[in-house]
C-alpha cells in the first residue's frame, strides 16, 4: 500500500504526525496523475508546481501543532472545473470560458485550502454541468477507470474518475440532478450531495441555481464527513446559505437496526438493469440480516421528477448562461455589430447539449408558455417535496439504487438526449426537494461498480453519513480500479 491508496483522513493523520511529508503525498498523487490521466483524462488542468510549492511550504514552515489543526493537512484534492480559482484556469468544460482567469476564489476553495488541502488541479465535466456522462465537455471525454470504453457518469465525471483511479483521495463535485452521485456510482466511489444551502455556492458557476449544490467525492464515508464538516458552513456571500449546525467531523457509530429505513416502491420497479438489481437486493439482504426493518413506502410523484427537472433546470440555466456574451471575459467571436457578435460568440462558444438546454429553458420561460411549463414545474416540485415530507414522518432514511443501470459505452446515448436525461431518474428528486443524498459503492457486477443511494430529511447529513458508515463496515472493503496502472 502506497500513499495513493490512503483515504484523506489517513493521509492527513500521517502528515500531521510527521510520518510523511505533505510534499511526498503530493508527489505521489502527481506521479499517479502522470501515469493515468493521459488515458482517463480526469483532469483538465494540473498545477504541479503550485501544489508542490504549497506542500513544501507546509512541510518547512508549519509546526506540528499548526498542522494538527489542519484537518486536511497535505491531502491532495481535485476541484471540479466549475468552481472558480484565481491561480488556475476555470472553464466549466466550455469553450466559451477558454482562457478565463477568475479574480476571486470560490468559498469552498478557500475553506479547503485553509484546512491544509493541496489543490492539484481542476477536473473535467460536462459543459456547465449539463450531462450525465462527461462526454459533453469541450475538452474531450473522461473515461471510466473500471472500463476505459465506458463513461464515468457525469457531470462530475472527472472528479469521480480521479478519486476512483486514486489520483487523489478527495475531490469536489457539484450536483444539480445527480451530478455527484451518478458518477460516484459509475466509478465506485462515495459521493454526497448535501441539503440545498449547506455548502456555499459562491464561486460555483451556476447551472440551475435552485438545485445546485457542491459536495465531496471520496473513497470512504469518513472522508465525506470530514470534508463536509469543513465546507458546510454559513457564507454571507451566498444569500441561500443556511446557518445550521455544523456537520460532525466523523460519522457517529450507529446501530443500523435502530433506524427506520424506507424502500420507495417507485425506485424498485421496471427499468432497472437486472445485474444492478441483484447487487442492490444482496445489499438489502445484508441490511435485513443485521436486523434492519426495511419499510415499503411510496413517493407517488417520482414519475414526474424528470419532466419537472427538465423544465426548471434549463429555464434557470438559460438565464444563468446569458452572461457569456463576449463582452467582459471569455470567448468573443467577431460580428458586424453587437447582436452578431453576441450570436456568433454564443453559437461557437457553447456545445450542442448546452444550446439544446438554453433553447428549452428559454422556451419554457417565454411569453405564453411560462404558466404551462415553468410555473407548472414549480408546482409539481411542491408535490415532490411533499412526498418526502410524508415519507419522513414514517422513516428516518430512504434507500434506493443510485442509478438504474451500469456505466454505458462512450457515445452510446449521444443520439437521444431524452434517454440521457432519464439516467438521472433516481437522483433528481433530492435536488428538487433540496435533500441530502449519498451514493455508496456496494459491489461490482461484470467488473463494473453499483451504487446505493441514501436519502435523508433536510439537514440530516449526520444521520445519512452514520448509516452509510455502518453499512460500509458490514460490506467487504471496496476495490479500486487500475491497480496495475494503465496497460
Amino acid at each position, binding site marked *: 500500500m502506497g500513499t495513493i491508496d490512503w483515504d484523506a483522513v489517513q493521509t492527513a493523520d500521517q502528515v500531521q504526525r510527521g510520518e510523511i511529508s505533505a510534499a511526498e503525498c503530493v508527489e505521489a498523487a502527481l506521479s499517479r496523475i502522470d501515469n493515468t490521466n493521459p488515458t482517463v483524462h480526469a483532469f483538465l488542468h494540473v498545477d504541479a508546481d503550485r501544489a508542490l510549492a504549497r506542500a513544501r511550504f507546509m512541510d518547512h514552515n508549519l509546526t506540528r501543532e499548526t498542522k494538527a489543526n489542519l484537518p486536511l493537512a497535505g491531502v491532495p484534492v481535485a476541484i471540479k472545473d466549475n468552481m472558480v480559482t484565481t491561480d488556475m484556469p476555470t472553464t466549466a468544460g466550455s469553450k466559451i470560458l477558454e482562457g478565463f482567469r477568475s479574480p476571486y476564489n470560490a468559498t469552498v476553495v478557500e475553506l479547503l485550502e485553509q484546512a491544509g488541502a493541496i489543490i492539484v488541479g481542476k477536473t473535467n465535466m460536462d459543459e456547465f454541468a449539463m450531462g450525465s456522462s462527461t462526454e459533453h465537455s469541450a475538452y474531450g471525454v473522461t473515461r471510466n477507470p473500471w472500463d476505459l470504453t465506458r463513461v464515468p457518469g457525469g457531470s462530475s465525471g472527472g472528479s469521480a474518475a480521479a478519486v476512483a483511479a486514486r489520483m487523489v483521495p478527495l475531490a469536489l463535485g457539484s450536483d444539480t440532478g445527480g451530478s455527484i452521485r451518478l458518477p460516484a456510482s459509475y466509478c465506485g466511489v462515495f459521493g454526497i450531495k448535501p441539503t440545498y444551502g449547506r455548502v456555499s455556492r459562491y464561486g460555483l458557476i451556476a447551472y440551475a441555481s435552485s438545485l445546485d449544490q457542491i459536495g465531496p467525492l471520496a473513497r470512504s464515508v469518513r472522508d465525506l464527513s470530514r470534508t463536509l464538516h469543513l465546507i458546510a458552513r454559513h457564507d454571507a456571500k451566498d444569500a441561500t446559505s443556511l446557518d445550521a449546525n455544523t456537520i460532525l467531523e466523523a460519522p457517529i457509530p450507529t446501530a443500523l437496526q435502530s433506524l427506520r429505513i424506507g424502500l420507495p416502491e417507485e425506485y424498485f420497479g421496471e427499468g432497472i438493469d437486472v445485474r444492478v438489481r441483484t447487487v442492490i437486493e444482496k445489499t438489502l439482504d445484508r441490511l435485513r440480516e443485521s436486523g434492519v426493518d426495511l419499510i415499503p413506502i411510496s413517493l407517488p410523484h417520482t414519475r414526474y421528477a424528470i419532466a419537472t427537472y427538465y423544465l426548471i433546470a434549463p429555464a434557470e440555466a438559460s438565464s444563468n448562461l446569458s452572461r457569456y456574451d463576449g463582452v467582459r471575459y471569455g470567448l468573443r467571436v467577431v460580428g458586424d455589430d453587437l447582436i452578431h457578435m453576441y450570436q456568433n460568440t454564443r453559437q461557437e462558444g457553447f456545445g450542442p447539449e448546452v*444550446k439544446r438546454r438554453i433553447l428549452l429553458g428559454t422556451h419554457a420561460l417565454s411569453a405564453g408558455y411560462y404558466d404551462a411549463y415553468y410555473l407548472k414545474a414549480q408546482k*409539481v416540485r411542491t408535490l415532490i417535496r411533499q412526498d418526502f415530507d410524508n415519507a419522513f414522518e414514517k422513516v428516518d432514511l430512504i434507500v434506493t439504487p443510485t442509478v438504474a443501470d451500469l456505466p454505458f459505452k462512450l457515445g452510446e446515448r449521444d443520439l437521444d*438526449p431524452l434517454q440521457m436525461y432519464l439516467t438521472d431518474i433516481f437522483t433528481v428528486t433530492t435536488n428538487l426537494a433540496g435533500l441530502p443524498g449519498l451514493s455508496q459503492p456496494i459491489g461490482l457486477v461484470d467488473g463494473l461498480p453499483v451504487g446505493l443511494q441514501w436519502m435523508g430529511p433536510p439537514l440530516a447529513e449526520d444521520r445519512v453519513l452514520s448509516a452509510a458508515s455502518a453499512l460500509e463496515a458490514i460490506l467487504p472493503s471496496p476495490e479500486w480500479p487500475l491497480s496495475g496502472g494503465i496497460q
Partner: protein
Amino acid sequence: MNLTEKEVRHVARLARLAISSVELSEATQALGRVLDYIDLLNELDTDAVPPTTHVEAIETVWRQDRVVPSLSPEEATANGPQVSSQMFVVPKILDGGEG
C-alpha cells in the same frame, strides 16, 4: 404541444444563438420529443398547489450597507476580449440594441 421550427428560431434569437438550419431542425425534433415527454405533467391537477421557488424555509437575508474594496479597473477588465481606456469595447449597436 408541438414545437415548430419558427418557434425554435424565435427562441434562438431571444437566446442570442445563431443556429444553423441543420441545428434548427435537429433542435426542433429533440426539443419536441422532450416537450412531448414533459406533457406528462398535465396528468396532475395543480391548480391549488403553490409553486416552490426556494426549497429552503429562509427569508429576508440582507447585509449591512458597508463598503467593501472594489477590484482595480485593471483587474476588472483583465479578462476583457477587447479593452480600451479601462473599459470594455463592444461593436456598434444597431436598432436600439436590445431587440
